[in-house]
């Protein structure tokens, strides 16, 4: 049961908490950017900035999907495995199609669409079970995580798919000076932004996450909306999988383990709430960039691996605590 927050705030009065809520994460981002540029001269170079952007692309794409889900009160733990599955399927299919003399442009498109399709099928399955049986998303997607990984090993026979061919360009090349992975990331960010701020579908996500009973009682078809959210996220993950393997120039069935946690962390740092009903795509992007910068700067500074883990964990804990303190009381 909720407690009434007892304030009757008159307009015009500055409330620090609300300010932090909206803009805090960007302030942190700027601070971290500033500190990083000072600490390492290598940080603010073109190459390094582009590196950071490519390095966060896959996680950010997945984080967009997670943001959509977290806002509606759901979650998905399967992206890491689905990235492996869809990514390997993408490059494997591409390799076969091209070997069968298909034009590489067409083969590429088919392969990527196939990957996105696989991602969507898996999410569809998850969401069907979640909505039909009112099953907890955590458990269902956890099961899907194991199953998808298994499917990936079956498909690849446990060995990497190498010599994948031209499709690697979507992960390794640039259009002009912008890497294709970054273009994909920007596209997904824009789509997510449109969904969340311009579409009725997005409004419904916030409503369902904020108070599912009230959403139902207001005439919203909650099951349909939730399944659509999962489908969207699944498509994103499929795309991310294609990019991931393309960047590695091979289909690696054992990679991307735990990637979903990086994505979820980015979303939470960026202001999405596990309780649902709150979250923005700009926040998630900021969260992903912050984590990306931290990883990058620790690497640039040649900090030892073990210490990197500690620093990362520490910073994430601080961000989350700040987030809780400024959100006020939640359910």
């Amino acid at each position, binding site marked *: *049961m*909720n*407690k*009434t*927050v*007892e*304030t*009757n*705030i*008159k*307009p015009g*009065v500055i*409330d620090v908490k609300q300010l932090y809520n909206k803009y805090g994460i960007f302030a942190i981002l700027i601070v971290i950017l500033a500190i990083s540029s000072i600490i390492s001269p290598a940080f603010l170079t073109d190459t390094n900035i582009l590196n950071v952007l490519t390095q966060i692309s896959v996680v950010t794409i997945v984080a967009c999907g997670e943001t959509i889900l977290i806002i509606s009160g759901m979650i998905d733990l399967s992206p890491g495995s689905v990235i492996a599955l869809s990514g390997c399927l993408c490059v494997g299919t591409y390799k076969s199609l091209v070997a069968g003399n298909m034009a590489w442009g067409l083969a590429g498109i088919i392969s990527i669409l196939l990957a996105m399709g696989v991602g969507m099928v898996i999410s569809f399955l998850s969401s069907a079970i979640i909505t039909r049986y009112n099953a907890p998303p955590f458990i269902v997607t956890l099961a899907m995580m194991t199953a998808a990984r298994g499917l990936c090993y079956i498909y690849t026979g446990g060995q990497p798919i190498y010599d994948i061919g031209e499709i690697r360009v979507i992960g390794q090349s640039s259009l002009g000076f912008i890497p294709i992975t970054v273009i994909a990331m920007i596209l997904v960010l824009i789509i997510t932004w449109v969904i969340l*701020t*311009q*579409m*009725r*579908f997005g*409004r*419904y996500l*916030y*409503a369902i996450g*904020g*108070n599912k*009973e*009230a*959403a*139902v*009682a*207001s*005439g*919203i*078809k909650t099951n349909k909306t939730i399944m659509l959210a999962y489908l969207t996220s699944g498509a994103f993950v499929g795309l991310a999988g294609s990019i991931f393997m393309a960047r590695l120039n091979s289909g690696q069935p054992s990679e991307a383990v735990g990637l979903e946690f990086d994505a979820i962390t980015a979303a939470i740092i960026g202001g999405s709430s596990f309780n649902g*009903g*709150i979250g923005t795509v700009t926040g998630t992007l900021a969260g992903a960039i912050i984590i990306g910068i931290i990883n990058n700067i620790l690497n640039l500074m040649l900090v030892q691996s073990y210490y990197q883990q500690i620093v990362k964990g520490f910073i994430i804990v601080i961000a989350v605590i700040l987030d809780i303190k400024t959100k006020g009381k*939640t359910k």
Partner: protein
Amino acid sequence: MSENILELKNVTKSFPGVKAIDDISLTVKRGTVHVIVGENGAGKSTLMKIINGMYKPDAGEIIFDDTLLGAYTPKMARDMGIAMIYQELNIIPEMTVAENIYLGREPTRKFKTFIHNKKLNKQSAEYLKSQKLNIKARTKMKDLTVSQAQIIEIIKAITCNAKLIIMDEPTSAITESETEYLFEKIRELKAQGVSIIYISHKLDEIFKIADHISVFRDGRHIKTGSAGEFNKNSIITLMVGREMSNIYPKEEVEIAEEAFRVEGLTSKGVFSDINFSVRYGEILGFAGLMGAGRSEIVRAIFGLDKKDGGRILMGGKEVVIKSVNDAIENGIIMLSENRRKYGLIPIRSVRENIMLAALKYMLDKKFIRHRQEKKIAQEMVARLSIKTPSLNATVANLSGGNQQKAVLAKWLLIKPKVLILDEPTRGIDVGAKYEIYKIMGRLAKEGIAIIMISSELPELLGISDRIAVIRGGRLVGEIKREEATQESVMRFAAGGESNE
């Protein structure tokens, strides 16, 4: 020992942007029931939270039991002998009744860290039995009805040997007989020398127990006197700051043809064979004791709950309602009695809440046109006089009355044919209630058929054209406005007996 258990001197408290309590001085005599009335935002709850230690006053003194108090916490307050029953229930759903009653003072085993569960449950069961309460000690809080949960909260406060008990709207969600039970307890406590501060909107009720009455308005203490010095109208005048001649504004409305009919509506074990109809422009009141099944009936009509049998007809034609969508598409709308749970998305903005249903059933576009939306929401806010700092304010920050108006706004946007209101004015102050009655009247004039469930008989009698009475899941009587009196309604509702 002075005759005052509590003395407040010039207490002031502000929050960002608003002065909630403005220089209030108040005394509460020992062993008396001191009632505090006032509109929402008058400062009653804030003052209680100051007394109970949750807030620290910006200025002023608090003298409790002849001791000047420094800063203190709610726990310290409890230890000192100040107990509080909150208006908004803060229950932990998975906790059992027994655990809840003994929270903080559980009987322990040899080593203090282990709770003696058997003892806990046995003592609780005994206590509940001795209080003649039909609640099992092991029931989880979430499985209790709202009124049962409230009673448990009351018991909790009563059993911890307080010197001063603060009760904030304790009867807002409990049945008539439970209210009687509470009043009996209050008299018992008084006899034991315990002092009680009692906040209520129910002006008819307070005269049954009040020794003294204080009226607050806009954060200020307006007047205090013995109960005999006041009557209902004088209190209302002081609360609102103006003369209110007509508490229940009733318009002359042309009642048209039949809008809505229910035949043989049944839900096994909950209600059976419900038959009634409503016409356009008519206000049908649903009377009955709590637990009679009124909410369940309308929830089934609205498609929120399943039904086992019966037909629903709109304008003479049968409609199939299996989900909320079906109901809405047939023009049937329901505002739940639990607006927090079913009516609002508390963490979202006023604008989003108002537009929630309209996005599909009025505008029906996949993309949101923000400027258009703003205009529509703004119009609604003005039309219903919703007090909010802005359209983007979080709806949880609005007062109860304004929240209810926001929910109404949401539904009015999609032009219902039949509007079902379940306890629409619960927890809302007199001024806001009046506004809602006026809105209802306007809607009736516009031709909407209205069904109103209420547990406040005066309200039902004042607003309804007809009153249907539900008892034990059956419709036991229908009374026309002219013939209805509190007694006649209660006779049907309670079946002549004085318990449920």
